[in-house]
Structures are given as structure tokens and as C-alpha cells.
């Protein structure tokens, strides 16, 4: 059946619907491109035959192959675009340095795209808060939800060792200890799952 492999790619992304990124499926993509090439070749030869020999009964099959080609194209572009959207979300999730296991899932071109996205985001952030030279910029990746207070109560879910806060003091993060810390210090660790925000 034509277009099966393309739908397979889409299904793979659909399975990981919570924004996780599966590994870049080079093989699958190559197979789809091969299928498209084969269809295109067949179509070319049929079109030539139809033109020269006047065989109008080949026209439906040409139409079918053309539809398949369009479908494959649509599937592949959807696959690539969805991956790019997920990679963009990674920048907001993990910050500018991706952990190694995530970076493994990206293809070389996707990594390039990620680098360029990072650059344009940081350019934008720098331009905020005073346009002319000397603007400090605003880190818009902090505080994704409007914060209710400067300090939050967090609970440590695992032994993480020491954490240094802005005034130089060091806090020992041991399992099941609770701390009352500045919000901006804890956000990263909360996202990583080391700390848990306690709402009481």
C-alpha cells in the first residue's frame, strides 16, 4: 500500500504526545523518499507513454500516483515541522544547554536549527528593557506563570548535594528536607524534579 511508511512516521510522533522527542527516524524518511522517487519515475514514464501513444487509460493511474506523491510530501513536512515545534519547546524547558540524552535524538540539521533559534531568542531578550546600547535585556524564560511570592516552600525529593544561592550561602539538599528559598533559584530544580513545590 502506498503512503504506509509516511503514516508510520506520523504515528511515531503521535505516540509520544506529551511533547517528548523520539529519535530522528532517518531510515523511515529515506524509505518514504525512495517510494516517492519510484512513484515519480513510474509517473514520468507513464506520462511520456500517454503523450506519445495516446493511451488515455493510463491517466487514472497517473492521477493516483500523483495523489500519493502529494500525500507523502504532506506527511513528511508535517513530521519535520512537528519535530521543530517540539525542539523549540525544549529551549523553554531546559534552557540553552540541552542534556546529552536529548541532544542525541536530534539530527544534525535540527541541531543547527536549534542553535539559530537560540541565537534569535537571545537577541530578542537582549533588546528588551531599553533599546539603545546598555539595555540589560529581560530573561523571558523565567517565571512562565505569574509568581505569587518572592520565596516559595520546596521539598527535596532526592539527595542532590549542595546548592549555592545568590548571596553565597550554600544549602544542603537532602531527601525530605524542606526549604524556603527564592523562587528563581528553585525553578530549574523543580523542572528537573529534584525539588517539589509545596502548597499549603
Amino acid at each position, binding site marked *: 500500500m502506498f503512503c504506509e511508511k509516511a503514516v508510520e512516521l506520523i504515528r511515531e510522533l503521535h505516540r509520544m504526545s506529551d511533547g517528548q522527542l523520539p529519535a530522528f527516524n532517518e531510515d523511515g524518511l529515506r524509505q518514504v523518499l525512495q517510494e516517492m522517487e519510484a512513484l515519480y519515475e513510474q509517473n514520468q514514464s507513464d506520462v511520456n507513454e500517454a503523450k506519445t501513444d495516446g493511451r488515455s487509460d493510463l491517466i487514472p493511474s497517473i492521477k493516483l500516483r500523483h495523489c500519493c506523491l502529494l500525500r507523502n510530501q504532506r506527511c513528511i513536512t508535517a513530521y519535520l515541522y512537528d519535530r521543530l515545534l517540539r525542539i523549540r519547546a525544549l529551549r523553554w524547558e531546559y534552557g540553552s544547554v540541552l542534556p546529552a540524552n536529548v541532544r542525541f535524538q536530534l539530527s544534525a540539521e535540527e541541531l543547527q536549527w536549534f542553535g539559530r533559534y537560540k541565537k534569535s531568542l537571545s537577541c530578542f531578550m537582549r533588546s528588551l528593557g531599553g533599546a539603545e546600547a546598555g539595555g540589560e535585556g529581560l530573561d523571558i524564560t523565567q517565571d512562565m506563570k505569574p509568581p505569587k511570592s518572592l*520565596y516559595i516552600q520546596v521539598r527535596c525529593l532526592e539527595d542532590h548535594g549542595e546548592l549555592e544561592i545568590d548571596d553565597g*550561602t*550554600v544549602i*544542603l539538599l537532602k*531527601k525530605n528536607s*524542606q526549604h*524556603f528559598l527564592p523562587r528563581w533559584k528553585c525553578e530549574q530544580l523543580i523542572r528537573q524534579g529534584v525539588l517539589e513545590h509545596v502548597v*499549603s
Partner: protein
Amino acid sequence: MFITDIRKDFYEVVANQRVALLVASDIDALCACKILQALFHCDQIQYTLVPVTGWQDLGTAFLEHKEQFRYFVLINCGANVDLLEMLQPDDDSIFFICDTHRPVDVVNVYNDTQIKLLIKQDDDLGVPSYDDIFRDDDDEEGDDSGNESDEGSEPSGKRRRFDEGAVERRIERQRARREWELFMCFFCQAAMMFFELAWVLTKDTKDMLWWAVIGLTDQWVHDKITHMKYVTDIATMQRHVSRHNHRNEDEENSLSIDCMRISFEYDLRLTLYQHWSLYESICNSCYTSCSFKLWTLNGQKKLQEFLADMGLPLKQVRQKFNSMDMSIKENLRDVIEESSNKYGMKDIRIQTFGVHFGFKNRFLASDMVHAAAALLESAEKDESNSDNFIKALDALSRSNLERLHSGIDLAKKKLMAVQQTVASCICTNLILSQGPFLYCYLMEGTPDVKLFSKPMALTLLCKYLLKAFVHSTRNKRCRLLPLIMAAPKDVDKGTVIVVGIPPESETSDKKNFFGRAFEKAAESTSSRTLHDHFDTSIIELKSEDRSKFLDALITLLS
């Protein structure tokens, strides 16, 4: 030293600093901790909270945090030993101790720089004066210590001649100190101390008031304070409650049903009865079960008579309390009080407080205490002490109702286990009189024995058992004896946990001398013991040393 102005000497000192909170594992400490946390959140004082279960834990926690923190607040731990000697802190560490254990170690009382006691000095502590204990014999330092004792200013010449006098005085000093440290008891509540701090700062809320009430009720439920003290403290709390409640009476601006309301209740002494069936609650509450002697057949019959006397059909009484008929529930308290007077239970009703928020959620203070205590000591395999601490701490918040309900279920199981163990101990005569005390040992195969490897649960069992024993025995002398109970703690390591409680009497002041007694007995027999708990009357012991330890105790106390 004792702190006089808690706002100036404690709160304003820590106001811009980072504080380490070391909290012991009992409900009063948890409540005090919650109140303090709420205050710190209000004023954005950064803190780190570490639960500790014993002296070793305290030492480890201190070592880990001493580099990073200068101010330490100890809740319900640390007052009854020489803290500076035990922890060896740097000179700039300051400890604020709010502890209900008495006696307070004299070194802690008289240390001016590093130890600040958040304890009211007008509790009749009877701290011996400085000179009774510390005054030196040397002439050089004797006169100018600014003391106000009678032994005042003797001329130095005379002193040198009266050597025997000096020796006698030293013996006096040691005796005074020993006597001071002989008995252990509890006094006041940490939660109330911090609530008063909140009140002085006018930052008290109904939540904090409720936590203070729970702290007070915890001390009463676990039999740590006398009834008189409980009633006095209830009166104090009642003033705060009515102050917070006066908004409710305003008809035009009445509060929404979801707001928290605390009300004074003169309610029944039946544990958890609103979350259980009335019948189960009567069977499993210490007071009723001991008065009826429900472990005997006669007792069961009396219970049936009692229910019949009140006109309560068995079918109603055995179903969940919330589903009982409204007509029965309306006058229940008065009806029960009347009937119980006939059966010799004069104190079936007790003054307490209840909280009410939303349509479904009504809890009495004692319900919360039992639920939190059951969570704190739940004997699940893969939960450490600090996990349980966190769970119990969560259950005290209003937003964690499922946690609270799971705590109530655990508490019901615990109470049923306690009752069954008490019944079996009495029926099989497991309590032996050893002369100066009664003794009971829970064998390893006893059902639910894992529950009783925890100190609070074992102490509760101990107290219930003693009450039941006093009601059931005919021997008048045995009724005045204290009780020591042992239960297996860790089967792999072969240790048992031993608890001693003072004798049961109406006018007891709850003073417990077993701390010292255990120490001496362990020394004299060189048994391998671990005096790790903050409460000195609870120790761990190797099972092989059990019999010689007991023999030593018998000789010591007779």
C-alpha cells in the same frame, strides 16, 4: 538562658537571617513547626526544615548544617541535655530551644550566650538557683558573682578553716542537681508558645490557632499533662477562639460556609466517633472500654445494657455515624452523659475544640491528633521516618484532606490493634508483678506487633494497658505500681524497645523517673542499650540483655 521578650529576643534576631529548624517527631512539634513556618512565610525568612527522631539524628543534622547556618531553632528537643557539650558547636552558633521536656538541663539555663530557651519562666519549674549548683569554693571568684543566695558573703578567712563546710556544700549542690534532674515530665506546649508569638506580632490566623489547639490536645491524648493543666490551657485557648469568632455572629456579613470555623465543644470522650460507628468507637476508646471492662463477657453484656438503656437500636449504632438517624444524633451527647453517669463514667464529656469548613468537613482536635500520630508512625516497610514526618505534616494542612482521611483510617486500625492487644494481655495474664513495678513483654508473634515497635504507639498501649489492669485487678497494691513494657523493635538486629510509665492515679503529676532508672540499670549490668529518644523513659535494648537489665531494675527500685 530564658527569653523574656519573645518578639525582641527571638523573632527580630532571626528576621533577616537564615534559620535551620530541627523538629522532633511528635504532634506538638509538628504543630509548632507549622505555626513557625507560616510566620516565616509571612515575613520571608528563609529556613530549612529537618526532621529528627533522636539524639543521633540531631547530631548528624547539626553536623551537616553547621557550616551553612548560624541560627538553629530546636522544637521539642534539646533542652534536657547539655547541648553545647553534645554538639560542640562553634562560638557563633545560637540555639533557640522550645522544648516541652522537663527538667531543663541546668547548663542550658545558665548559659548566657549561645542557648536561648523559648520557655516561660513562670511555669513552676523550680530551677535550682545558680549558687546551689555552680558556685565555686575558691575565694577569688566567690564574692562578685552577684548572687542573691543566703550563703552570700562570708569572709575568706573563715572559709579556709571550714573545709568540711565546703565539702558539705558541694555534696548539697550535687544532691540539688541530681534531684532536679531525677524526674522527667512535660510542661506547656511548643505550639502554644509559637502561637503566642504570632499573637504578639498580630499575625495570628485561625489556622495557627487550630494548630495550637491540636498541639494542646496531643499532650492530653498522650497523657503527658495533668487534667488540671489541660483545663487551664483550654480556657486560655478559649479566649483566643472567641476573639477570632466574633465575626461569625454578625448576621449581615456572615462568613461563607467554606471558611474555617473553630468552636468550643463539650464533646464525648469517644475517640474518632464522628468518623466511625458509635459502637466501634465505644469499644475502642480507652475510657469506655476500661470502665465497662469490655474484654470480659460481663463487660459486653453491660455494654448492651448501656445501649438499651439509652434507647439506641443496635442497627443504628453499628452503622457509620454520619448515616445515623438525625433524631438520634440530636441529643446524643446529653443522652450518653446521663446514662454513663449511671454506669460510673462521670467524665464521659470533655472540653475540646472542633473545626468546621465546607459542608462535609468537621473534625475534633482529638481526631486530628490521632490521624497525625498514626501517619507519623505508620509501619510501612519502605517509608523512612522522614517520609512519615512529611506525610503527617501535610495532613495538618486544610488542603490535604485525603491525607487526613487516610490518617484517620490508619488511626482506627491502630486503636483496634491496641484494644485487642490489651484484651489479650489481660485475659492471658501477661502482666507480671516484679515487685516494685509491673512488667509486660509482647512476644514476636503477637498480631500487629510491628505497630508497637514505634515509641508513641507503644506508650499509648502501655497507658491503656495500665488503666485496664488497674480496673481489672483485685490486688490493691498492684494498682499503685508503675508499668514497664517491652516489645520487639527490629527482629534482624535483635533489639527490643522498652517503655516505662508512672503509676496510674487520679492526682498524678505525670512525673516519670524511669529515665534515670534505665540509665543506672544499663550501667550496672553493662547491657547494650541505646538512649536515643528525646523522651528518656524510652530506650532500645538488645534482647539477650533483657533479663539481666530487668533484674538490675528490680534491685534498683526496691
